């Protein structure tokens, strides 16, 4: 019997429903998706796929500032379509990395700083970490009612324009006309709450504009024969707690001071993370669900802490997706050599581990029979390395990690600054040297 992963990958490879510009584009799409499906399932493909993880590179490379890219969706779209034609990658994100700054400005969002505002115009936006929610404000509230926590505590805290939403009554009390609506809905009549609702409406309009550009752009990318990059996103529960609410040091302290509550919250986040990934990927009609792992890297916790707090809930999320036929793609930020044995505990041919920094020989040795590996080309070499250096690096990776398939050439992070010729060399040299 065909398993769900195979069925889902085959559906993706078929290209059914895509309006291709011509037969050559259709054939190219099928070659590219087949190549990716093969490396995921640990079969030997026709050649090593190359998928450059373009961060702000397409905009900078086409003469835009990062500021223009995040404020002008049309300009960002035009730039990425040029990048697509120039580099012909095996999968392509489009302009999804240029997040819509006006949406976040409408909310007064505190967790990002934008180019041309607080940081230089040619820099990528930056996430600003903090302990946004204290432990005593987080655990009990979240465990009791995650939606209420998000609406009345988290969003008012991280979006200055939504601060008044902290005043409304919990929606869990909205039973009916005489119990609540007559009285507690008065909060929605207060001018400051109405301003917050207007901010949400403005953010909604920006989101719709951005999504519309991306949806229409996705059709053009597919029509030209390029598979999209992924169907949706999910996350490791430990990162969700650390990134958005407690901060890196906050969640570290919680491992010592409230381990039970931390584990309980992460358990609650498992089904939420699975559903988020499944719903998005199903909408996107794509088998791959992306993860960006932030806080489980070498040194960021002890092996025992990794095996207690980080890996078990993450594995549950991965398994929830795998059981439905979707393929987790995990960008493992930082070093991951000490985690290899632990993360090898996953069914064969069902996921992609994308490393920034790892012992590549060891990674192949330990994970080679289990999972597809991606990455290996340092951002610094793309930025200032010579062609020779770059080719040597690609050759070494393909010889070792690409042996017998199961490897995708890429940088180990979303790169912004890089030399055009080097990125060109990365894709072209992989296309020739990577043939099996």
């Amino acid at each position, binding site marked *: 019997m065909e398993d769900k992963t195979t069925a889902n990958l085959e559906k993706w490879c078929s290209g059914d429903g895509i309006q291709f510009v011509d037969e050559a584009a259709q054939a190219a799409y099928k070659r590219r998706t087949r190549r990716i499906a093969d490396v995921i399932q640990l079969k030997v493909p026709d050649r090593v796929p190359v998928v450059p993880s373009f*961060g*702000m590179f397409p905009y900078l490379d086409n003469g835009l500032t*990062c500021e223009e890219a995040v404020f002008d969706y049309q300009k960002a779209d035009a730039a990425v379509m040029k990048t697509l034609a120039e580099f012909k990658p095996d999968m392509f994100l489009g302009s999804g990395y240029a997040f819509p700054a006006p949406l976040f400005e409408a909310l007064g969002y505190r967790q990002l*700083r934008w180019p041309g505002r607080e*940081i*230089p115009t*040619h*820099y*990528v936006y*930056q996430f*600003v*970490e903090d302990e946004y929610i204290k432990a005593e404000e987080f655990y009990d509230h979240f465990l009791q009612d995650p939606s209420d926590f998000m609406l009345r505590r988290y969003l008012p805290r991280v979006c200055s324009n939504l601060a008044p939403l902290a005043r409304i009554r919990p929606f869990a009390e909205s039973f009916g006309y005489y119990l609540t609506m007559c009285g507690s809905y008065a909060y929605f009549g207060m001018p400051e709450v109405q301003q917050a609702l207007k901010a949400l409406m403005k953010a909604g309009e920006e989101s719709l504009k951005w999504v519309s550009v991306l949806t229409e752009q996705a059709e053009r990318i597919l029509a030209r024969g390029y598979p999209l990059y992924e169907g949706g996103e999910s996350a490791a529960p430990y990162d969700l707690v650390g990134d958005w609410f407690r901060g*890196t*040091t906050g969640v*570290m*302290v919680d*491992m*010592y*001071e409230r381990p039970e509550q931390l584990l309980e919250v992460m358990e609650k986040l498992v089904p939420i993370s699975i559903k988020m990934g499944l719903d998005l990927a199903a909408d996107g009609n794509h088998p791959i669900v992306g993860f960006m792992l932030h806080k489980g890297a070498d*040194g*960021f*916790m*002890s092996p025992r*802490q990794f095996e207690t707090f980080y890996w078990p809930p993450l594995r549950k999320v991965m398994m929830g997706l795998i059981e439905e036929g979707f393929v987790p793609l995990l960008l493992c*930020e*930082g070093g991951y050599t000490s985690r290899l044995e632990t993360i090898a505990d996953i069914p064969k041919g069902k996921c992609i581990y994308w490393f*920034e920094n790892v012992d590549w020989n060891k990674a192949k040795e330990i994970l080679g029979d289990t999972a597809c590996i991606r990455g290996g080309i*340092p*951002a*610094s*070499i793309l*930025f*200032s*390395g010579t062609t020779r250096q770059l080719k040597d690096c690609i050759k070494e990776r393909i010889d070792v990690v690409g042996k017998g398939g199961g490897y995708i050439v890429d940088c180990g*992070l979303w*790169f*912004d*600054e*890089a030399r055009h010729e080097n990125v060109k060399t990365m894709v072209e040299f992989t296309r020739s040297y990577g043939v099996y």
Partner: protein
Amino acid sequence: MNEDLVTLISELKQKEAIEITEQRLKSGEDPLKILADGKKAMQIVGQRFSEGRYFIPDLVYSGKILEQVAERVKPGLAQVSDDRKIGKIVLGTVAGDLHDIGKNLVTFMLDVNGFAVYDLGIDVKPQVFVDKIKEIQPRVVGMSGFLTSVYQAMKDTVDAISAAGLRNEVKVMIGGGVMDEEVRKFAGADAYGQDAMAAVNLAKDWIGGA
């Protein structure tokens, strides 16, 4: 008793460490002695970190315990003067970059290893580095960065130090998420360090020290 506090902090026993601190204060002990025990404990933590027995969360948590101990002994608390330190280091996250977690860990580890650290914070312009170097006359400068966007800022900072005629006065080390040997060459720094311990070892090599 004194050994107790050192052990409790270095074994990350927060509750007991605070209890002992309060008992010792109540019994009229010199707060500076308590603080000295705290510092001693941090050296043990730093040592265990360098041996790979402790990890970043252990550093963070021991730091938090020490902070709570220090809060309680505050009235008698005096800074260890710089002349008792083994050498001066100026460090910061380079211009345009707002990341501070890695840099803070480096500052922490250099501090517990006896260096006088002048942490300039985040988004530090080249001229600010230069001014501080002139003022403090450190032997070592550390630059942190987390984005490919700041490769150039690393180089600009080293260039500014050279233009001010200070390049031969200091050793420059770089570190951070996207940094490596290749960036060191590009920026014209003296060394790249992969983690906080590497920074300590580089500083010891350059300055000397225990």
